[in-house]
């Protein structure tokens, strides 16, 4: 009996010490936190949602690869703790390979790995509004746990607004403003020249997308949100403008129809493994071969575009990310070489890389994004 | 053609089924294998048919070790009637019986093959249902079709695994008569597994009684079907009567069973 009482006493004493020790530790003031007290900020995102961020954002996650360059523009890449798969360029995004991925590269971005998201203590999740189901479900799932901002920085309709919203939350208004000024100036420059073109002066183009095989003929109609804007800025007519589509996406177009169109220019935006990026060499063989394969397809071989050497390859980095402006610049130059005689899209691209991506990449020596350049 | 089985051993992993079977089946002889459930009857038939490989012992078909024969050679000698057969995609009765001609024909079935099938179907009274689907037939009809298929093989040895189990008495007799006539007309040897001891006593030239994977006794019906052997092998008391030279076996009601029945009844009445 005595022994039991003694044991209980010892246990209670030990317990008491532990509690005292822990409480004592807590009472010490946390000096770092006092420095970074941050006023709550509320922004309205592209979906009209009011998003309030109460604390300083130190840990960012994003679930669509288009956001990566946006975060570079805002110069907050070092705050990214979780990311979308799909791109892995170490030059652009230092340390990207070590940042955990929230979902499979080709999966639905709106089904992220929640456990990872919560486990990493994410302060802010940035979501691109893309035409895929599941956004509402995901927002409901994260409500009250992680602040989520929905943006559309991969296309002209949402870039400026998205950058401004993110900049306010992250306290990077200066970086956003710099980019918006640069971007608006280029847009003005392009549209000033193309605005006065008559319909006859605009080339009829086909924007060929696919699944990898040269013979795939997928495209986007003008129902796709930014297609009319692109047509206006680059000064062209999309021959597939009115095709039946799924929200602007036409998964397979009959080559028979294509062969009967008068086609002035062909933009090939196919995925070509290993062809594009900062590490691809200037004469990327994969891309050149792919272009040749497309040009010699029966459907294109006899077209005006191929005969006039007006078939161009453009890498996926130049559309579907904030870099679309560089894509527009190349297209404008391709479609109207006389109008843009003293205009160099590569210079625009170089500025984008040096000033806003802050990467040391000399396009005249390294990297492959379009072919041929003129 | 005669069939000799020598010292046949067969076991499934962890279970010895046949433990040294010897038997000899002569041409124009009907041999019935009898014995309780699990005594190894079907396994013995499957070993002779080459569906199971015995671990030890030989099967000699007309002087040739069956181990040296291909399955096609064996199919030309032995016709086999399984207990039942399930077709994944149902075929007609005619086409099912025509399969029996497979060991003798090539890709195309010849006009003679068709004639053989027609002859068997008419003698077995199956002509009426010849174009019906096998899977839609009753169990008894299916059994007769399977016998017809084995006959279409024109075998020299016929193995039957409980061929009459699903038949009514009229069809039992019909099937047994057909087999009986065939044995002498075409000089074939028949080995069949039967449960019905009366049927065995009536048609068998020789009865082999199996118990626990060994031959308990073999010989004529008069020698084998005794009260003692039945009590030994089946654990059942039975009276044996002889009527016009045919033995009939009548099991006596078991008292133990009925008292247990009463016990169960009492249990349920609570």
């Amino acid at each position, binding site marked *: 009996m005595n022994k039991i009482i003694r044991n209980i006493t010892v246990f209670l004493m030990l317990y008491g010490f532990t509690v005292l020790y822990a409480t004592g530790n807590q009472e010490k003031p946390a000096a770092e936190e006092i420095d970074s007290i941050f006023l709550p900020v509320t922004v309205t995102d592209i979906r009209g949602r009011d998003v309030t961020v109460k604390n300083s954002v130190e840990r960012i996650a994003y679930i669509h690869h288009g956001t990566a360059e946006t975060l570079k523009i805002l110069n907050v890449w070092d705050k990214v703790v979780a990311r979308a798969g799909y791109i892995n360029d170490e030059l652009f995004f230092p340390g990207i390979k070590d940042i955990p991925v929230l979902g499979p590269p080709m999966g639905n971005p709106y089904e992220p790995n929640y456990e990872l998201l919560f486990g990493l203590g994410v302060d802010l999740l940035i979501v691109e509004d893309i035409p895929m189901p599941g956004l509402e479900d995901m927002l409901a799932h994260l409500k009250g746990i992680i602040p989520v901002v929905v943006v559309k920085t991969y296309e002209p309709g949402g870039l400026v607004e998205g950058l401004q919203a993110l900049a306010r939350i992250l306290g990077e208004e200066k970086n956003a403003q710099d980019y918006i000024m640069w971007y608006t100036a280029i847009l003005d420059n392009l549209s000033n020249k193309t605005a006065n073109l008559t319909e006859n002066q605009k080339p009829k183009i086909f924007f060929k997308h696919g699944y990898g095989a040269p013979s795939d003929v997928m495209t986007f109609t003008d129902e796709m949100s930014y297609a009319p804007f692109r047509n206006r800025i680059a000064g062209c007519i999309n021959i597939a403008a009115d095709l039946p589509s799924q929200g602007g996406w036409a998964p397979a177009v*009959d080559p*028979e129809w294509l062969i009967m169109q008068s086609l002035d220019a062909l933009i090939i935006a196919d995925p070509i493994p290993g062809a594009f990026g900062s590490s691809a060499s200037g004469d990327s063989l994969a891309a050149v071969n792919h272009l040749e394969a497309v040009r010699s397809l029966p459907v294109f071989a006899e077209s005006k575009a191929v005969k006039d050497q007006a078939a161009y390859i453009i890498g996926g980095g130049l559309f579907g990310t904030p870099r679309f402006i560089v894509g527009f610049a190349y297209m404008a130059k391709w479609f109207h070489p006389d109008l843009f005689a003293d205009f160099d899209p590569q210079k625009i691209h170089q500025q984008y890389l040096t000033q806003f991506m802050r990467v040391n990449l000399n396009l005249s020596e390294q990297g492959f994004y379009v072919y041929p350049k003129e | 053609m005669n069939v000799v089985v020598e010292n046949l051993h067969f076991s499934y992993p962890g279970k010895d089924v046949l433990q040294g079977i010897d038997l000899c089946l002569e041409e124009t002889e009907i041999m019935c294998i009898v014995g309780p459930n699990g005594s190894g009857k079907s396994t013995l038939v499957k070993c002779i048919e080459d569906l199971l490989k015995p671990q030890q012992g030989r099967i000699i078909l007309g002087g040739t070790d069956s181990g040296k024969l291909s399955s096609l050679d064996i199919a030309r000698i032995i016709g086999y009637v399984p207990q039942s057969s399930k077709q*994944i995609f149902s075929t007609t009765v005619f086409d099912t019986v025509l399969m029996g001609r497979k060991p003798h024909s090539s890709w195309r079935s010849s006009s003679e093959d068709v004639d053989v099938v*027609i002859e068997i179907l008419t003698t077995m009274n199956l002509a009426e249902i010849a174009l019906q689907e096998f899977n839609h037939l009753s169990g008894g009809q299916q059994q007769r079709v399977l016998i017809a298929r084995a006959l279409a093989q024109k075998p020299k040895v016929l193995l039957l695994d409980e061929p009459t189990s699903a038949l009514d008495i009229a069809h039992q007799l019909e099937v047994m008569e057909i087999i009986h006539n065939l044995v002498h007309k075409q000089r074939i040897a028949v080995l069949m597994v039967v449960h019905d001891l009366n049927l065995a006593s009536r048609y068998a030239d020789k009865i082999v009684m199996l118990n626990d994977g060994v031959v308990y006794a073999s010989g004529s019906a008069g020698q084998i079907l005794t009260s003692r052997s039945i009590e030994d092998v089946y654990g059942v008391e039975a009276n044996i009567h002889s009527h016009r030279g045919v033995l009939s076996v009548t099991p006596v009601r078991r008292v133990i069973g009925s008292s247990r029945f009463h016990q169960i009844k009492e249990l349920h009445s609570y």
Partner: protein
Amino acid sequence: MSDVEALLRQSKHLKKSYIKHKSRKKLFVIILIPVVIILVGSAVAFGTADIAFFDVYSTIFRFFFPVISSSTGNADIIIWKLRLPRILMGLLAGIALGSSGAVMQVVLRNPLADPYMLGIASAAGFGASLAIVLGVGIVAGPYLIIGNAFLFSLISSGLILALSGRKGASPESMVLTGLALLFFFQAMTTIIQYFGDSEAVKVAVFWTVGDLGKSGWGKLAIITPLVLIGTGLLIWKSGDLNVMNTGDASAKSLGINVQGTRIFAMVVCTLMVAGIVSFTGTIGFVGLVAPHVVRMIIGTDNRILVPASGLIGAVLLVLSDTLARTVLSPVILPVGSVTAFLGVPLFLYLIMKKKGGIL
């Protein structure tokens, strides 16, 4: 005496009705051949490009008889380089999928089996992904991806044979091993996608989507002998398959080398379907439904069923593709969904109409 006469009369009557019964079934195949030819012939006349009926055929016949005056515009390219290769690829894919589906259902003793059940498509997808994402392959050049897809289909089948062979190559062990490998290769495909660049991943993901648009004469030259010889071999073994339908023990007692036949059938189906998958991706439904449609019409004699399933598969696929090309022209609908759209009502109609069960 009258008994014997009655028997004789009965057997004569039976022979007559049996021959009638069989010839009706043979007639079905004999009719199907011109139906397929006519269908292919008329499919050529339909398409987005509005080419006059006469021009279509003068374009075709001019190839054989160059004296016929040349037709206008792009008709030559549209007919010879776009429409015909596509339709012929549909024809061959239909034959291969239909006939191998019929055979797979019998050898695997499973009415739900289709040519992809043993993981051919997912293994092909994995092989293609290896080539696309990691650039690893056995043949270099333009056939890197296709060669890899084909090789991995064969590896998958080899694994099934090696693994299930230890269990006596029973249908159950084959189906289970096949399903296991199907999921394994799918998982591997997903996993290697984490190691590729964005473009490669996109290409790999969409590689297996069924599409007849990739066809060309060069590919047809490879596929045609493969499908014709393969189907021929399956028809050759179809007599044995009839017996295997009654179960392994039954078939063995009738002298069939059950294991050998099952392995043979599987190897032939794999070669043929792997070839088709490598060039067109996965086109579902045809291989499952064509054999059932034929069974409901003419029964289960594999000697007629196997070629007839091939032909019905071809009819289904060529017809579906023609609709896919014309309904929403100039946008092409996915051929797989049109096949299901056409095939399901036909299938349901036959199930409702058929007395008794379908199996």
